[in-house]
Each structure stands twice: as structure tokens, then as C-alpha cells.
């Protein structure tokens, strides 16, 4: 097998599909194969991976965004900043400058071009990043501060803090909006966790559209596969989407979840299910990696003699 590091995003069209259960158990399964593994909790509005991995946190730092601020007595209301901002994040009306933090990308153009030097960039904390380790895997999570809306900035900070482990599992926020896109953006492949219900299928189709738009290879994990109808399976077959793991509707899984236990540890009979699935996912991901990025199989002899 190849040694290229692999980043897998675990996402779902909606919350409560078992995304964290899957991500955590896969992280442990991958670690059991001897790989170094990191688990990144990118669900920064409601991170819950720590409940299961119970990590020891060894460092903590703020996630910040750079936002322009007006020094009012220097500003003459010329409007240059509003014209220059490609993201429409500034308005100048009646010589008053209004900044819309939720639209600002922190590019710095406005402060650079302000003829009066009236705009300064200020770093503002929007959340916290925590780094640690638990259950044999490296752990990083982002926590969005209360009242903040800049989830993508916190997710970006989590990804920046990531190490160079062989396997990275990104536990993504639910849904299909900007935070998920930020989390998925530089993953090699995406696992979409879903339930075979009409609602589940609806959210899955949205998640599939998003993942296709991002041009990411993806496959499906079917949770509580025996619960709903067979429309989801039919949809996947029609769309040629592989289902790499199916988990039964087992009351004991919900119980382990409620107790904050890791599925494959609390119910060891599931360990082989995840081991099989991990092999399938690994092979499937490697098969989809762009040619040029895949290094030749590690061959020490050749390296030594060349």
C-alpha cells in the first residue's frame, strides 16, 4: 500500500445521522492498522468528538479573523474602500463607513487603498483551537465563540493546526453551506453519512450536489440501513455512488453514543465491520487519487542505490 497521506472528510446533509460515530470509529480503526491518525473536529458550532475520544488537551490558541476598522477622524467619506472591496463588505453612505464582518474575507485591500490611511486591520478572536490526543489518535478541534458567526475562519484555523499524520479524518459540520465547504475544500475524498429515509435521501442529494461541485470523489455510509426504504440504495446505484459501509439500526449503538463511548470499543462485534469498511475506503480513495500526486510505492532499496 502507498504511503501518501490521506485526508477524508466525513460529512452529512443534516445533523444526527451518526457522522461523529462513524468518524471516531474509523479513526480508531485506521490507527489499529499502524497508521498515524488525526481527528479534526470541524463541526465548530457543536463539536462533540471530544466526548468520545476524551483527549488530553495540551495546547490552545485563539482563531482570529482580520477585520478592517475605521478611524473616524481620519476618514473623509471618499468611498474608495467601498469601491475596492470585491466582496461588497463595505458601504459608504452619507460619508459614514459601514463594515459587514460576515462578508469580509480579510483581504486587506481596503486598508491598502484608503487614501487617508483611515482603515486599520484588527485581529479579532472568533473562536478557539484545541490540540491534544486521545484513544491513540491526535485530536484537534475548533470551537466557535458564542455570538460569533465566522465558522469558516475557525475551521480554517483547525486545518492550519493539523499535523502531517498519514490519515486525517475531518468531522464536518452538517448541511451544505459555507462551513462545510471550508471543511471539505482540501480533503482527498468525502464520506457522506446518511439514513435511508425520505428526508435523509433529500439531504443526501443536496450533499452529493455540493461534493460534485467541489469535484471531490465521494462515497456513502448508510446508517440504520434497515430502518427506511430502499430508495437511497437505488439512488446510489443509479448515480454510481459506492456504499462503503452499512450500519444496522441497533439500539445498543444509540446507548453507547449516549454514554459517550466509542462504538467499536463498547461493542467489539462492530470492529470487524469497520475494519472491512476501512479497507474498502482506503482502496477506493487510493484508486481515485490523481496520478501525479501518488508517489511510487515506498522502495527503500531503489532510493538507496539511485
Amino acid at each position, binding site marked *: 500500500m502507498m504511503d501518501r497521506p490521506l485526508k477524508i472528510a466525513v460529512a452529512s446533509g443534516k445533523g444526527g445521522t451518526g457522522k461523529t460515530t462513524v468518524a471516531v470509529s474509523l479513526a480508531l480503526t485506521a490507527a489499529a492498522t499502524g497508521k498515524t491518525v488525526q481527528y479534526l473536529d470541524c463541526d465548530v458550532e457543536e463539536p462533540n468528538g471530544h466526548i468520545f475520544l476524551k483527549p488530553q488537551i495540551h495546547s490552545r490558541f485563539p482563531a482570529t479573523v482580520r477585520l478592517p476598522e475605521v478611524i473616524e477622524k481620519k476618514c473623509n467619506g471618499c468611498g474608495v474602500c467601498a469601491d475596492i472591496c470585491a466582496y*461588497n463588505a463595505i458601504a459608504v453612505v452619507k460619508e*459614514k463607513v459601514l463594515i*459587514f464582518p*460576515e462578508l469580509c474575507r480579510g483581504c486587506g485591500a481596503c486598508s491598502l487603498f484608503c487614501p487617508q490611511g483611515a482603515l486599520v486591520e484588527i485581529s479579532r478572536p472568533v473562536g478557539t483551537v484545541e490540540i491534544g490526543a486521545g484513544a491513540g489518535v491526535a485530536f484537534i478541534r475548533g470551537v466557535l465563540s458564542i455570538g460569533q458567526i465566522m*465558522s469558516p475562519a475557525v475551521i480554517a484555523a483547525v486545518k492550519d493546526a493539523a499535523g502531517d499524520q498519514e490519515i486525517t479524518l475531518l468531522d464536518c459540520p452538517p448541511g451544505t453551506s459555507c462551513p462545510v465547504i471550508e471543511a471539505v475544500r482540501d480533503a482527498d475524498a468525502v464520506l457522506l453519512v446518511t439514513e435511508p429515509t425520505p428526508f435523509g435521501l433529500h439531504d443526501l442529494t443536496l450533499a452529493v450536489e455540493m461534493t460534485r461541485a467541489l469535484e471531490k470523489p465521494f462515497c456513502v455510509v448508510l446508517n440504520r440501513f434497515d430502518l427506511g426504504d430502499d430508495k437511497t440504495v437505488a439512488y446510489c446505484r443509479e448515480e454510481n455512488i459506492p456504499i462503503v459501509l452499512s450500519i444496522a439500526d441497533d439500539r445498543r449503538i444509540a446507548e453507547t453514543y449516549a454514554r459517550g463511548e466509542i462504538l467499536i470499543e463498547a461493542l467489539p462485534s462492530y470492529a470487524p465491520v469497520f475494519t472491512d469498511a476501512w479497507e474498502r475506503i482506503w482502496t477506493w480513495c487510493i484508486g481515485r487519487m490523481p496520478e501525479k500526486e501518488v508517489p511510487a510505492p515506498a522502495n527503500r532499496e531503489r532510493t538507496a542505490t539511485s
Partner: protein
Amino acid sequence: MRRIGKVMKIAVTSTGKESASAMDARFGRTRWFMVADAETGAWEAHANEQNMNAVQGAGIQAAQLLVNLGVEAVITGHVGPKAFRTLKAAGVSIYLSEAATVEEALRLFRENRLSRVDQADVEGHWS
């Protein structure tokens, strides 16, 4: 046309460039702004094409356009929080109406049958 209350220039979001055109319920992504000048009694049409297709911040840009035109009140169907903040900062009054046409909206306004809004009535799309 007599002076409309204290307001000199009032804009109505419109699907077309006639005063008889149907109102456009959207603010930032309206197709046209029909602007009535209380002094001359004339209607002026202003295209909103550029802002209509903005990826984000359409309402902010549309609000700036109106402020630069010297508009003091606007009648529309819905207004989001960012456009609201921009219009408020410039002292532009906002009225909501479900009138069928632009003229009809202005008539209701002159008859004092539209109420001024003091907060945005639709959620913005966050990041």
C-alpha cells in the same frame, strides 16, 4: 405632483422600467428601481443589473445606489439585515408593500397606508 410628505425622492422596487410595471418584491436583487421625484413629478428608471447578479452584498450595493441618487424613502417587498443597516445609516425610510404595481405602491404611500419598518424582515444569508 405635490410634494410627498417630507420626502422628495422615493424609490420603488420594480420588475420593469414603467410606473405601471409590477413591483419586484426583492430589494437587493430587484430588476429596477423606479424613482419618483416629488418636485418635478417625474419618474426615473434605474437599472439594478449590476447588483442583481452580485455574489454577495447585493442589498448593500443597492442601498448605496439609492443613497447616491438622493433617495430618502424606499418601498419594497422585503429587506434583509445588511441592506436595512445601510439604508438606516443613511437615514432612508423603508416601507413594505405588497402592491401589484409601482404606481399603486406610491398611491398607498401617499394615502399614508404603508407602515414604516424598523427592522429587517428577512434573514440574511450568513457566510
